[in-house]
């Protein structure tokens, strides 16, 4: 059994609850145990780092320190949380004075940021730790006949100086997972492009244009569904889909799945169990 500390992203506790619930179904099947960090706080969502760089360092040093206390790596299932926490880790590891300042405060809670726990994405755990062969051997309902468009999103790839797992120009981990589950991954130009999430509330029209481009490509390529490792990308591509396509004058639709749901389907769980019916487009 491989154990990990699991970071609870704000969005997975509100709008995309089905993501974490799906993991609960299959984690034992893959010999995994995710210990949820209920003490964890919002990472700052790629905003706190410029609102207050020092609070950003404190909050995320604490998030990582909670995992370090358990002696486990910190696993994240939201791209932006991943990028944000890894950015903070890099800053802390490169700036001893900041690390000391933060640790002096964290003492109050009996915590210390040491830099010993890695911060990794759920997708990387599946591909690198569980392994594609093991995943293949556990598949009960292969996703054959499904044409799947892999949408990686930005913050699992860029900045590559912080992420570094996949080649940001030609990522492959999600494609590999799809194929291990028996699905057919399609060539998808937008696989490493943006969903527009972070400007939805300040530049909505631009964000929806960005999303519509990706949706249009998947629809034209006759994909059966899009899969994404990020709940923020999911929120745009699923929740805002009809608005985005309407703005782009496209009369069509396409379902969008979380990776946790796609894994669940292949491991024999039903769409209802996995919460796929909670999606806006299904």
């Amino acid at each position, binding site marked *: 059994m491989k154990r990990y500390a699991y970071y609870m992203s704000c969005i997975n506790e509100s709008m995309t609850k089905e993501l974490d619930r799906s993991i609960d179904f299959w984690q034992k099947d893959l010999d995994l145990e995710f210990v949820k960090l209920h003490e964890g706080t919002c990472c700052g969502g790629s905003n706190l780092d*410029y609102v*207050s760089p020092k609070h950003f360092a404190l909050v995320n040093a604490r998030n990582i320190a909670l995992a370090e206390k358990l002696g486990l790596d910190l696993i994240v299932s939201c791209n932006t949380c991943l990028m944000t926490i890894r950015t903070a880790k890099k800053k802390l590891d490169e700036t001893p004075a900041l690390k000391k300042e933060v640790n002096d405060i964290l003492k109050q809670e009996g915590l210390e940021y040491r830099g010993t726990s890695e911060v990794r994405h759920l997708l990387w755990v599946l591909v690198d730790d569980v392994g594609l062969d093991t995943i293949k051997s556990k598949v009960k309902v292969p996703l054959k006949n499904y044409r799947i468009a892999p949408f990686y999103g930005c913050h699992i790839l860029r*900045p590559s100086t912080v992420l570094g797992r996949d080649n940001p120009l030609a990522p492959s981990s999600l494609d590999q997972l799809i194929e291990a589950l028996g699905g057919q991954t399609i060539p998808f130009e937008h696989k490493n492009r943006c969903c527009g999430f972070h*400007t939805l509330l300040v530049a909505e029209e631009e964000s929806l*244009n*960005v999303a519509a481009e990706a949706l249009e490509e998947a629809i034209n390529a006759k994909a059966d569904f899009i899969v994404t490792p990020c709940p923020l990308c999911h929120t745009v591509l699923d929740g*805002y889909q009809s608005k985005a396509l309407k703005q782009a004058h496209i009369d069509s639709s396409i379902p969008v799945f979380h990776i946790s749901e796609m894994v669940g389907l292949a491991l024999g769980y039903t769409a209802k169990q996995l919460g796929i019916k909670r999606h806006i487009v299904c």
Partner: protein
Amino acid sequence: MNFRKELINHSLMTETIDQHQEGKRDVTFRVFRFNPQVDSKPYFDDYTISAERGITVLRSLNYIKEHVDATLSFRAFCQAGICGSCGMRVNGISKLACTSQVWEELDKCREPGIIKVEPLRSLPMIKDLIVDMDPLVDKMKRYSNWINSTMPLAEMGKKEFLVSEEEFHRYDKATDCILCASCVSECSILRANKEYVSPAVLLKSYRMNVDSRDSIHDVRLAELVKDHGVWDCTHCYRCQESCVKSIPIMEAIHAIREDALECRGPKDTSGAKHAEAFMEDIEKKGKLVEATLPIRTNGMVWTLRNLLPMAMKMIVKRRTPPPPPLVKSSKGIKIFRAMFREMTEHVKQDHQKSHKK
């Protein structure tokens, strides 16, 4: 010494001969063509040439122009990654043709052996691989991206400006920009709206705004926070990833935002309000209160007009974020809050120190 020199020369010669023997192959360049005076729409021409290992995409294009097709148009000058003239998309990615190795590009081809060469995106096309840089120049003007000296005219030339090492490091990397427009071409928001300020312009604005010799920081900042300005960046990091000089462009964009929050306050624009909401929520609950985020960013009227239809669908699907009282605080919030506030005191002290300076 002579022996060592000879040895180095010999090894260099052997290396060249080896490369020559092993490293030569036919490569096809699939080049975007469009002459608006003649063509009704763009098309691609294939040029197959014999290319040696070590040759760049620009050298190949020069060869094609000199020996195969003199009508092919592209911009180039220094051929050494300094002038920024030969920005174009090679195998789909915006970069300099003069620093792109053909051999490395061969590994990235979608169709084996065929290197695709296209003009930069998001700038008007002039001919073939040449784009019009004027919109970028116009934006540099709109955001006053030059130093407006703090020194009175009468003192010019009589006195030196002293710049501290600390200050220099703040804009050292930003001055590496060669205006090749690769970041402009890769920008997600510019692709969606040509009015957007664009990453190269933001980088330059940052560089000017942190320069103590400049007197128009406030004017520039006031322009930057307007529509299509700094708050419209969607944090996709494509600019930074494509920068041919590895400049951390997002750090510059974040720094402008940090500056805007400090100088203009957290209630200045919807972008500022949106960013500040994260700080408020984390301090209060440790979690983001998503339900009220649109209202706090854009007000009730905007929220009702823009999000009501979607909210109805979300209610039906039971995926609406919980209202504020039902957002559960992180476990151990009290001690977290105390630590958060202690950091607030640190930040205040930092500000006092930097203002004293």
